[in-house]
């Protein structure tokens, strides 16, 4: 498990450039993740690696290809000080776990990160860094493994159609 550190305001154009958006397959998208801004990512990323970033991760375009490219690359969790709204929601919907950790900047690429999200912290090379709780409704989507699976369990009374 390796940590990939990124700075503030990483936009979805950087995660997956516009010229690759005709691709819909996560594994194929992953081949182009961070192309042009961090080429070694697609080459060296391994299943189970995590991304750690600063503020506003995933800002910009609503392209779901961005969290798909990361999950296609084997990333299961993105830790950031804060997330852009659409990326945060897209990640949960496709089963990539976004973790808000106000002290994410304390994590370095040499750290070992073990999540204890139910207890509300990340264990980072022995230290405890608090994480923000996920709202109840989103928790249910995460537990279902994404919105597609959650939708299959939804009851008609949960919907608002008359």
């Amino acid at each position, binding site marked *: 498990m390796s940590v990939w550190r990124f700075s503030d*305001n990483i*936009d979805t*154009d*950087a995660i997956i*450039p*516009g*010229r690759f*958006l*005709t*691709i*819909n397959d996560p594994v194929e998208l992953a081949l182009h993740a961070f192309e*042009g*801004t961090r080429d070694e990512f697609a080459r060296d990323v391994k299943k189970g690696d995590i991304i750690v970033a600063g*503020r*506003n991760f995933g*800002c*910009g*375009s*609503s*392209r*779901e*290809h961005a*969290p798909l490219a990361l999950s296609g690359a084997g990333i299961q969790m993105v830790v950031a000080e*804060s997330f*852009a*709204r*659409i990326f945060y*929601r*897209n990640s949960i*919907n*496709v089963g990539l776990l976004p973790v808000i950790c106000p002290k994410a900047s304390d994590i370095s690429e040499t750290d070992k990160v073990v999540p204890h999200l139910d207890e509300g912290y990340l264990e980072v090379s022995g230290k405890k860094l608090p994480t923000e709780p996920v*709202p109840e*409704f989103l928790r249910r989507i995460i537990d279902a493994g*994404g*919105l*597609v699976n959650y*939708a*299959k369990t*939804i009851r008609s009374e*949960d*919907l*608002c*159609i008359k």
Partner: protein
Amino acid sequence: MAETITEKIFKARCGREVHAGEVVMAPINGAMIHDITGPLAIEKFYEMGGVRVFDPSKIIMLFDHQVPADSLNAAENQKNMRNFAKEQGIHNYDIREGVCHQVTLEKGRVSPGDIVIGSDSHTCMYGAAGAFATGVGSTDMGFALRYGCLYFRVPDSIRADVSGKFSPRVGAKDLILNIIKDITVDGATYKTVEFTGETISSLPMAGRMTCCNMAIEMGGKAGIVPPDRITHEFFSGMSNIRKEELSSDNDAVYSSWRSYDVTDLVPQVAVPHNVDQVVDIDKVTGTHVDQVFIGSCTNGRFEDLKEAAEVLGDCKFSDDVRVLVIPASKTEYLKALQAGIIERFVRAGALVEAPCCGPCMGGSFGLIASGEISFSTSNRNFRGRQGSTEGKVYLGSPATATATAIRGEISDPREV
């Protein structure tokens, strides 16, 4: 309890009182999909067990990002969407009409007071019509296509109160860049940005669209202008549009209240590589550019092209600059053609393309190479946004873009 316009819209649509911060399942009045994010949305719709969409008349479909199809992948994606539209009875504007957000508004597919989603981040532009509109990803869209509703966290609002009269050749784009500079790229995350004040009340729809369009560049969930006489005039003659009077209560609670005065505002430019890196024009004049793009959902309307043509006058564009002019829709294109503006652009040396997103998102044509600089009227200047990650993008108004295209370097439109 006093409410913002956003809370009132959610209350009306959910049929009960709701407040900022609450997560609600709300019915939607419209859902827009295009050629980039639509294919995945359709895939998700089927994965969720979808058979028929909730209401074909509420789905807006068109292709604008890679048109006409510029690769085999794009052609296949568009073919699949065409087939879906036929099977489901959805009216598909296909490649005929132009950029999704412009078309959705000018075809009257959004009413004041609506909740509308689009699988595109600039969907917030429909707030110019007094609707609550927000961008979503493809899985959310697949869910909405199937069920006709979606979960939302009812957002807090930031009030942006604008006063004063613009100086000549300064306008809505300069205002919104100045507001983004103040609020910053993530200062409005999860919030509605509500534009009010005398300057907004007298701002034509084109300018309101420019402002609401860029709410996302502050992280905003939505931008909104309370519907008024100008809104209703824009939709006049469209029988399907509801003429709702809506505004926030005087004592509504805002997460912050910002005041702006445009009286002394000078042309604003966003410099690489974030949209809140905004400076007064004099800080960047003289910067060489290789390409100028006038167009996009942010600034490709007739009013924008007219503003550009006024700055152009009898001048020619510099031979050192590639100038791309792309009207935002067929309707806007025809208006510009009839006004003789298109011919002037062509004679001055511009390449005028048919309505589409063009180089805005760097996924089709008009890309910039390494070391090159683009000056663009669009909405994002992220590294690599318009091509090479070694290139640079500056953002500004149609007037500033035109002055820049004439001189071949970033120039003040008041001095051309």
